[in-house]
């Protein structure tokens, strides 16, 4: 994924490519002590609050837990074996893959034109921006409960609404029907991730110098061409960040699936995160197995992120 060197038609002046930093002229390397001030607090907090509990989780994954939650002893790899040989796991893994890929792809595809729209000046722009902040401002749990309320077969408003528009003939069991629940959950995830993504891309658009667009226009480029060859590549920075963050966030997302899928028995619609929670607290009530699943979750997303970062060559 190399960045093409963009040149404007005006005298071959290179347009600074996004994502490619130039080495600062400041010659000396950072002295370690000075570095401590810049990155020290972040390291300390992350090690202490994020990494340390991970050790605890790993430790728990090798322990044998009683139904009460008390530790009975060491379990070796039993917990991992139990989780990896669970007959529901393949389905859960497949669900997770679709969940993340579809969620991120649709979010990104919708956010790009939305950001373009937000970048314009027109009456109603402010209203749109405020409307856009609301799904982000609302707690995910509450939004999910709201959707649950709307989608209810008997007393939700979506069915009567769609029927009055003749889009559907009979009420649909959005949350209980295997064919629809998956898409409902993905749509909810997109709905919630859209604001952040759109604003992040918008911030990137704001950072593009005006003269870049002007230059392209003077050259006679169509709006689409301008977008495709000039604007879009310059959004690489924000896009890479949002795709990465959205993937991680959607992968780790618990409330959406939990709330919308709550009334469905079995594991057909679970992702690895809700599966982990169910094993630990709801069905098996086996903390050790839940911890093993948590470790697997970290490994899965860690490997994917590592591959992504290497491929994108963000160094």
């Amino acid at each position: 994924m190399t960045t093409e060197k963009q040149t404007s038609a005006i005298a071959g002046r290179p347009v600074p490519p996004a994502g490619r930093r130039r080495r600062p002229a400041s010659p000396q390397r950072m002295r370690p002590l000075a570095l401590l001030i810049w990155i020290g607090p972040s390291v300390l907090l992350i090690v202490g609050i994020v990494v340390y509990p991970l050790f605890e989780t790993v430790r728990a994954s090798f322990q044998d837990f009683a139904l009460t939650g008390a530790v009975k002893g060491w379990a070796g790899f039993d917990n991992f074996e139990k989780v990896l040989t669970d007959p529901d796991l393949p389905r859960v893994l497949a669900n997770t893959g679709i969940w993340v890929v579809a969620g991120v792809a649709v979010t990104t595809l919708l956010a790009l034109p939305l950001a373009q729209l937000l970048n314009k000046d027109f009456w109603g722009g402010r209203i749109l921006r405020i409307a856009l902040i609301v799904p982000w401002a609302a707690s995910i749990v509450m939004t999910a409960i709201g959707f649950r309320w709307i989608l209810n077969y008997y007393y939700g408003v979506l069915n009567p609404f769609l029927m009055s528009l003749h889009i559907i003939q009979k009420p649909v069991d959005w949350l209980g029907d295997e064919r629809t629940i998956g898409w409902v959950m993905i749509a909810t995830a997109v709905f919630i991730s859209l604001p952040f993504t759109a604003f992040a891309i918008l911030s990137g658009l704001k950072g593009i110098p005006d003269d870049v667009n002007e230059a392209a226009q003077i050259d006679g480029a169509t709006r689409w061409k301008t977008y495709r060859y000039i604007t879009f590549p310059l959004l690489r920075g924000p896009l890479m960040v949002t795709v990465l963050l959205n993937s991680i966030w959607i992968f780790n997302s618990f409330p959406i699936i939990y709330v919308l899928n709550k009334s469905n028995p079995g594991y057909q619609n679970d992702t690895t995160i809700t599966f982990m929670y169910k094993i630990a607290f709801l069905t098996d009530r086996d903390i050790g197995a839940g911890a093993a699943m948590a470790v697997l979750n970290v490994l899965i997303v860690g490997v994917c992120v590592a591959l992504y970062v290497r491929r994108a060559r963000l160094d």
Partner: protein
Amino acid sequence: MHRKPVRAAAIAVAALSLLALSACSASGDSSSGGKVTSIKFVAAEYSPKTAPYWDKIAKDFKAKTGITVDVQTIAWNDIHQQVSTMVQTNQLPDVLNLDSFAQYAADELLYPASEVESSSLAADFPKNLADSGSVGGKNYGIPFVGSDSVLFYNTDLFTQAGIAEPPKTIDELASDAEKISKLPGKVGFALSLSPEAPHIDYSTFMFNMGGEYMKNGKWTINSDANVKALGFLKQLTDSGATEVNPGNTGRVEGSWQLFESGTAGMVIGQTGLADRLKTSNIQYKTAAFPSSPGVTPTGLAVADYLMAFKKPGNQDAVKQFLSFAFAEKNYATFAANEGLLPVTSSSQKALASDPTLGPYIPGLETAKFAPVGEANWDKVLGEMKNSLGLAVSGTDPKKVLDQIQAVATSK
């Protein structure tokens, strides 16, 4: 000198100091060997009235005895996870209000009920309720509030469908439900088998069709009678007599909601539903649940318990607190607030004439409990919650019950 980045050293120091901290992790409250003056009470949150109630009790208790009660009210949705976390980190409560106790008793974490009940309190429980809290013949769980399941039916819908009397047999229930479901936009029988609380509806049918959870101390979850009962529910669903998706319908926002809005003709309800229907204007009545020929009609008795955790020096404080919680004035207020049945004989006598709760009290005495005293009941229940609904959405009922039986008899 640049070879060893100071940054790496800093990280190592941070990590080490945190590991050191964890090594000397302090356990719960400090008691100096004598009696404690402060106890932790974890209560389940039934409604927004629960937390203020217990806070007030704690205040009154402190004024009376000088013992501080640290109250934690946790929503039902989250309390099991939270308690599990507490046990894991050795932050046990002193008194816990929960719907299961056998696993804590099995791990020898609890006082036997006799050691923390005053003699007058111990004598005040009806036998079936007191015994429901026993594990291996010894009482550990102290029943606190109870409910039994009865049939709720909408008299308007019955009239509209031309049904004069509530059903007395299971077959009548099926045919009545089918008749009502033919009314436009109505549901015959609102059945709830989603992971929220499927065992209530299922057990009610199962018991009344001659099924049992256990026989002679052995699990009989996949007995023929039980398979027949679950199969009956599948038939009921397939014939359209229930709402469209009972396997995916809960109780509180599902079957009870359908009944409250006048959409459903029949539902299995408890005192909580009656409390809820006070503000609705549907016309309804309750009746004993129908049963198969030769089976005495019964309901599923469900109780929530108080249990006391063994911690050095807290026995006396816990005993006092329990007596205070059950004290007439306090206890009656709690039951009234939450719309639940009190379980002591004395309070039941006092409530016998209450229009809302009174009618349920006799039923509680004859209702049957699920085997909550089995050490792995919580696990069996977890499996039931997760899979019972599958039986009405395409999976073979026998397979479902076989799976639950396997979980019950494993380990």
